[in-house]
């Protein structure tokens, strides 16, 4: 079977759990920006967790099915409509041949995930079906989805009727705290600059995509120095270095950028902190205007947060298996 893109939405793309292992040549891990929501959508339709789904930021696409299928929509809160009638989120439901899935306006969060039983069957490139649009490969034709695309779906064995219990569904807010580990080149900031980073409220700008999330707020102050050879003249410049996924860079001391799963792998701007792995999915569900604070944690705290997050994922998986 296949799914036709009637309307593409905004920068919708095929993603799975990503393509680790090629960062040293500038190929980012990619994969669903909110991995948890993507995996949940797959589990709802009986797919393995790494099946390919559609990720759609801010605006839903319109899809048409050419055969009966089972579908689930997770992630951002967005009215989901099957042939114009309300359909559930966080719950798998059947569709018939010729049915159309459309969406209303975004209410909370930023990205929806659409899984179809069987998974979107696009070619595996370097071990993943994820789209890396900047590099022009992976996903469907190496690009975001367009009107008229017909995406094949693999063989399915899942059924409808699985639902995520209410208490295990995420709540998206317009005010968020992100936990960060300070370090990297943070010694380049003055003490006032470091305090300013941690004590200010930052507002997500519209420059927020799979590559990075840019925030507006005050100007950070850097230590004065004679720049090292090769670094460039601005005090926020460094000799080009590798950028961790989730790292926060502050070009020119203004508008911090959190790099996300399609990160540029390196460059010449000082990074001053890194969002912990447990909070990257939460970053993905922030829409422009979200008021954000960076809360410093230690590495050990980051690891505990990771373990807690994995425990929540395990509870969700068990709950879904119980509803089979």
């Amino acid at each position, binding site marked *: 079977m296949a799914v036709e893109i009637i309307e593409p939405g905004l920068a919708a793309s095929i993603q799975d759990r990503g393509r680790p292992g090629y960062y040293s040549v500038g190929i980012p891990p990619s994969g669903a920006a909110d991995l948890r929501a993507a995996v949940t959508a797959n589990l709802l339709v009986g797919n393995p967790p790494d099946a390919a789904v559609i990720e759609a930021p801010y605006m839903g696409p319109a899809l048409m099915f050419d055969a009966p299928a089972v579908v689930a929509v997770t992630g951002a809160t967005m009215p989901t409509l099957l042939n114009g009638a309300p359909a559930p989120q966080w719950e798998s439901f059947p569709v018939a041949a010729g049915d159309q899935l459309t969406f209303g306006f975004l209410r909370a969060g930023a990205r929806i995930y659409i899984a179809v039983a069987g998974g979107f069957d696009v070619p595996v490139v370097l071990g993943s079906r994820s789209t890396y649009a900047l590099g022009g490969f992976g996903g469907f034709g190496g690009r975001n989805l367009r009107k008229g695309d017909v995406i094949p779906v693999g063989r399915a064995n899942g059924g409808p009727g699985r639902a995520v219990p209410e208490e295990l569904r995420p709540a998206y807010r317009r005010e968020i705290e992100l936990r960060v580990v300070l*370090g990297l080149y943070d010694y380049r900031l003055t003490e006032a600059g470091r305090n300013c980073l941690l004590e200010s409220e930052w507002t997500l700008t519209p420059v927020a995509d799979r590559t990075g999330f840019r925030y507006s707020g005050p100007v950070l102050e850097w230590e004065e120095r004679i720049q090292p050879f090769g670094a460039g003249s601005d005090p926020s410049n460094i000799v080009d270095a590798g950028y961790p*996924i989730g790292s926060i860079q502050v070009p020119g001391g203004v508008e911090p950028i959190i790099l996300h799963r399609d990160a540029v792998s390196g460059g010449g701007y000082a990074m001053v902190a890194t969002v912990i792995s447990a909070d990257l999915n939460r970053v993905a569900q922030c829409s422009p205007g979200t008021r954000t604070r960076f809360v410093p944690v230690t590495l050990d705290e980051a690891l505990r947060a990771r373990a807690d997050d994995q425990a929540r994922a395990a509870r969700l998986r068990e709950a879904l298996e119980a509803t089979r």
Partner: protein
Amino acid sequence: MRRSGESRYSWGGDEHLVVQFAEAMSLEVNFTAMAVSKILNDDRLPGIVDICPANASLLIRFDPDVAAPAAVEARVRAAEEQVAGAPARSVETRIFEVPVWYDDPFTNETGSRFRDRHQRPEGNDLEFAAVENDMDSVQAFIDAHSGSPWITSMVGFVAGLPFMFQMVPQERQLELPKYLRPRTDTPALTIGHGGCFACIYSVRGAGGYQMFGVTPVPIFDPEQRLADFNDFMVFFRPGDIVKFRSIDNAEYDAIRAEVEAGAYRYRQRPVTFDLDRLLADPDGYNAELLGALYGS
């Protein structure tokens, strides 16, 4: 985190370790980054996902569910100590040629569209480069750029993009600031320059480096059409030595046609790169490397 010798170790969240070997760029420090990476690659600790050598630093991405951060750090420190104790001063690599149409219409047209973001509104980026580096003509700058070879000190930013550092003494390094504000467009295969680094833009997109010309030769080929991409879609590897060669419009078109026909092969030769010999006699050693490339 503790500092070991000159190096600075720091965590990038719970999945990354960054080692800054030095703050300034030099061939020696880049050599250290590559040597430590090689040791880590040859005997890979399970759970280390990516080993990314950079110009003067090293980024490790790891899965903390498989490898504890302390174990990753211990492994990297051991590799650094191994390099410090028995410095590998030579490396097996390759040298190849990248033909460049300098002062081409594609980058000039793009540059003219973004003049409001440039330090010098009049002229083009090459003219700016010549002035900034105290050269009396654009041709003199092109001669310096294409005369001595460059070493690939880092691959990244976007897929397959090489950063290159010219194998000449620091006083002969070509240095330029980046654009005041990044462009939103750069032609694919543009030869760029920022700080002391050359780059080749592997794909069309945003960029802040000065633009000098274009190469007709692909460096990133997801479809793997050319024989040089049989093994992998990315051509450049850290440690690759690159010689730019100035070509004209006619040769650019001829090479493009060869690329389109799927017949183009890079001119390349394996070489042993010896850091001490380069530092002792840069021009003599570079001439020897070029001899290996051109078979003289």
